[in-house]
């Protein structure tokens, strides 16, 4: 199957692609940094804030257990937030670029 030749430099410089790139980069790396920081708070908290982790909140359930459970909720939450934004916004932007791709910058 022969693939249509594309002018990649022109697509890269196209304002629509640049906008996708800007939006995606800020969003993805932001989420990435947040998730890593939130994850490492768990071992750090367990090691250095033991007294806080021991405080009982609900019956025998303490802050530490809730924090560990929240790691799951946060991971799923990030997946949900990303999927929602990607499905609604990024996919539509990508589709538009794909449709126009062959004509951007005049195919080589």
């Amino acid at each position: 199957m022969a693939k249509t030749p594309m002018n990649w430099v022109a697509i890269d410089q196209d304002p629509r692609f640049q906008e996708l790139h800007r939006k995606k980069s800020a969003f993805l790396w932001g989420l990435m940094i947040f998730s890593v920081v939130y994850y490492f708070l768990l071992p750090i908290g367990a090691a250095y804030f033991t007294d806080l982790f021991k405080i009982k909140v609900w019956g025998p359930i303490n802050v530490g257990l809730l924090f560990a459970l929240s790691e799951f909720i946060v991971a799923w939450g990030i997946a949900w937030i990303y999927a929602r934004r990607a499905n609604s916004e990024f996919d539509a932007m990508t589709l538009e670029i794909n449709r126009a791709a062959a004509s951007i910058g005049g195919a080589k």
Partner: protein
Amino acid sequence: MIRRLACSLAASALLTLPAVVSAAETSAVNEKFRWLTFVVFGAIIALTMFVTYLAAKRVKSASEFYAAGRSVSGIQNGWAIAGDYLSAASFLGIAGLISLYGYDGFMYSVGWLVAYITVLLVIAEPCRNIGKYTLGDILAFRNDPKSAKTVAALSTITVSIFYLTAQMVGGGVLVKTLIGIDYEVSVVAVGVLMLAYVLFGGMVATTYVQIIKAVLLVTASILLVIFTWAPYGFSLPGFLQAAVDSANVQGQVTKLIGDAAKNMTPQELGQRFLEPGLFLKNPIDQISLGMALVLGTAGMPHILMRFFTVPTAKDARVSVIWAMGIIGGFYVLTLFLGLGSAINVGQTEITRIDKGGNMAGPLLAQFLGGGPDSMLGNLFLAFVAAVAFATIVAVVAGLVLASASAMSHDIWVGVVRGEHATQEEEVRAARISSIIVGIAAIIIGILAKGQNVAHLVALAFAVAASSNLPCVLLTLYWRKCNTGGIVAGMIIGSLSAIALVMVSPNMTYPTIVKANSEKAIKAADEKLVALSADLAAATDPAAKAKVETAIAAQEKAKKTALDNVVKLGDATTSLVGLDKPLIELKNPGLISIPLGFLAVILGSLLYRDKRADDLWDELYVRQNTGIHAEGAVAH
């Protein structure tokens, strides 16, 4: 021909199993009910062989063999990723850690899920868009194809062999512990089955085996949790309070914290089980392991390979989200399995058969079905044992497929034949590579019998995080990254991770082991003297029996310590000639991951590579948009 061979292989695997059962000394399954285990094993093996038979008819092209024709749906692939990822270590090991150490075991499980955020956000979709079959394909996009494929293949094989060895040895020990089959036989059985899936059914069969395994694993866990939790009216505080009130749990905490337990009430002891610090003592080690997990999972070749099996990047996204749901849900369930086992079975019984706690889940199943002497209890246990077996086989199949693809697609077709090979030649090369890797896995599994291989899993993740991940990430997102960086990153990242483990506390240091053993022998001797005095003083039979049990325990401890010294022979230094570890870090990630990134960056800046720069625009546009991505094969 292939079909007939597949059938006869399956039949021989089935027949050899019961024939070689050794006398059960300490296996979990009651001898009377062992046949039950084989029935359940047989049913699961027959099912997987049936799908392999169906798959074998379909697998004709390279795309079918390596990537299941890219026709796996997002949801199916999500289950397959979970099946590829949840090894016996996570199924049995984490439930075991929770049953023995409470909170710390649960905390340990978190990183295995968080790892998928990296995969979801920055790896899965771009890799699907620009890749074809292997890690090598991703790196060869804009770097010199031969150099990139060579280092990628070497790294893939290294990572897979480390992981594979841990799985083979762990699997052999596990099957032996569960049902008493000889270690060598279970290693061969795992190897032959896995080889049958990969050889005949390629990625198609591997995918279905992984889905079947994940469904079985999740079903088994949900059922066990329902039975465990129901007596407490499905109340979370009620269930945890039962753990706090449990004499087993209180006793275990007393054992773990020693003197500190003297001034604590039973309630405080029980509550201590739900607080951190009983197992994971060094936070730096944990952060190091956490880094290896969070960055290593995204660099695991057998996980990366799964993203090439779906038709589009969007399906890759869907599959990671499903995988995160399944994997995370499973780890939440293990909290109940572990604590349930602690409450109902008790740590003494759990560690009687396996010191690491791997039997916590299976023994809980046996208890819930009615105990060791009941038919239902043993049926439950048989089911869990069979799921554990399927777990090992599915993970091993994924690993073998990944390394075989690296050998055939990257090295043979890419480097040796310069991309000139027909579909038939490529599939044949892939099958031959699978046989080579499969046989190597069996041989390594048998040779490594009795070795401590648990740290190899962590090492595999550390190598992937220090070499594969920096290379993939920077080639995808950094314009200046080039061939020089990829080669330097792969070599320095993986070698530094391996070298750091070689000088870490994970290795065996004979002088230290000997000193500890001597101390243990001395302590046992002192206790034996005291106990024999007790024995002479004991009057009623109950007290006498208690002292006799204590004496037997001390003698056993003494024998273990003596055996440890004997095992070492004349050795005085570790494998690399050290008296004691050079670094305190058990997981090398904290040092080797930054080194890997640094190597890619410096290598790229010092090397000039016009191709990498010229292709940047194409790569960046394609990884974001999926233009010209490899399409699905029509059926």
